[in-house]
């Protein structure tokens, strides 16, 4: 049976470390599929102007396109070039919740993410996405420093 590992990227260099760790792990496991995921932070409960609403569909397409070409596609291509079986997914939502949901939907056995490098008032107050993921994920989570 193929083991499926989910790698959560955030567009920073910590993601590179998460990929490196996942590659190492996949080589050890043998038959392993890598699922590279980028979640665009989004909430259905924000307030927007009428014009923002009218343009939203267009913006969403642009955001998905940008995340795919800049982050996911290069990562998947690099993994494939290195001989791994890899796929990519881009989705909007709460980062921790969505990453966990994608993992469960796709039968992933574990999640690997980089430690969030940013710091600030909001993260002190609400915790980072990584912390939320570790707290609530349904599968084991590895946080790469």
């Amino acid at each position, binding site marked *: 049976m193929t083991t499926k590992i989910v790698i959560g990227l955030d567009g920073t260099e910590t993601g590179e470390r998460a990929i490196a760790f996942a590659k190492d792990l996949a080589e050890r496991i043998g038959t392993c599929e890598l699922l590279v995921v980028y979640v665009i932070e989004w909430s259905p409960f*924000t307030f927007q102007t*009428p014009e923002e609403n009218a343009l939203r569909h267009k913006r969403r397409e642009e955001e998905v396109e940008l995340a795919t070409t800049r982050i996911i596609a290069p990562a998947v291509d690099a993994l494939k070039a290195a001989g791994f079986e890899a796929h990519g997914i881009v989705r*909007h939502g709460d980062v921790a919740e*969505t990453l966990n949901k994608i993992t469960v939907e796709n039968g992933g056995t574990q999640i690997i993410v980089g430690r969030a490098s940013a710091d600030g008032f909001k993260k002190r107050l609400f915790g980072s996405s990584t912390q939320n993921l570790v707290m609530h994920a349904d599968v084991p989570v590895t946080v790469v420093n």
Partner: protein
Amino acid sequence: MRMLKQFGAFAAGAFAAGPALAQEAPGLDEKINQAFADFTGPFVSFIFAPFPGTGFPWIVGWLVIAATVFTVYFAFVQLRFFSHAISLVKGDYSDPNDAGEVSHFQALATALSGTVGLGNIAGVAVAIGIGGPGATFWMIVAGLLGMASKFTECTLGVKYRNEYEDGTVSGGPMYYMSKGFSELGLPGGKILAVLFSIFCILGALGGGNMFQANQAHQQIAGIVGDYPGWITGLVFAGIVFAVIVGGLKSIASVTEKVVPFMGVMYVLAALVIIIMHADQIGWAFGQIFAGAFTGLGVAGGMVGALIQGFRRAAFSNEAGVGSAAIAHSAVRTKEPITEGFVSLLEPFIDTVVICTMTALVIIITQQLIVDPATGNYMLNEAGNAIATVDGNTGVSLTSAAFGSAFGWFPFILAIAVVLFAFSTMISWSYYGLKAWTYLFGEGHTKELVFKIIFCVFVVIGAAANLGPVIDFSDAAIFAMAVVNVFALYFLMKIVRQELASYAARLKSGEIRKFGH
């Protein structure tokens, strides 16, 4: 809604923008106003004409009758689907694959920020001040009925919107008039759409812009002291320009986040005041019910209370006007009717909740003077309104009621009014633009022309004493309702088909909640 004819007249008389301009150019503004009034007078008089022998404007009757017809035609949809509407807003029925699109909550919040404002703060005070506590009862009745009008227009707004190749959307009454009528094989849809668009542009420039700028200036001048209105106008126009022309989204985003916060804070403050006077809640409701059917001595008795309640509710929640159909049409849904369900919460929140809160605070803090001998309300010297503590009317009555519990609240209220005015301008700049592009076509230069005109009107609105212009812009907004409701009567059978189909699929389990 903030386009309050009566409050506009009150504001024009009670506040100081007019005299400020008059000092700079004595007589000129009066000449302009007079010329404008002469030109637009017949139209204004027609829209606000009362039914013969009553003081009841026919336009209010038009909206209330429409709301009643839709309520009966859709078999009390506002009651049957109320909890379903809340589930939709919570996202229970949203496809996770649509994450990142405009949610039901966002469409509702955007539409609400265009309706919650001066109507809820000042309009209610006018209704209670003239019609007595009983006006609250009729306001709630009208709000509940108006939910069916919103449901009808917003369902159609989503169903017949234009979705362009680049992913943007345009929707609203002008689109369902032209497309819906042609689908039914009816003539005249295009003519109605053009008429609606013209009134929408005029309403956007007037009530959605000049009146807001004018009121914002009054509030600021009330705090910092009197100064020329054109200064406020230029600052506001600069900010509006930066947002709608310069694309400075951060200002709009901040406003859109602060306005709901202000709204919630307003309701919470009202709740605290009501709880502080918990022993009088029963008495206050007693006054509302007694006043609804007896008038409790107000001018015009029970009918006076009814007129004021219906009128202010219609003016506050815009049900039937068609503006909400533009705001709601951006939502991402495969079922247009779901946005109709969500939109019926709008008059409920605006009128049944927020307006009632304002009314209860005014009643419970005993701003209205009661004759101890008869238990009836005492009239003012002119005999046309209830006498109030310190003689307050309109927004100052609401301000005094909240201020009696929290001394600092009038300042918060003034800030809220300014922010509500700004968010309303942003909303109406969009509604006006959609009508403009419907008439003249989409395109950068064409859109820029409207946006610049809009900004110029901000300055004019803040600077001048614009009684006749406000009357005219109010009339234009209600003229939107004449055209819109007329079209809705023809198109409502389409909504009924959608409703029957959706209800059947909901019952069979074909439409079900997504596991979130």
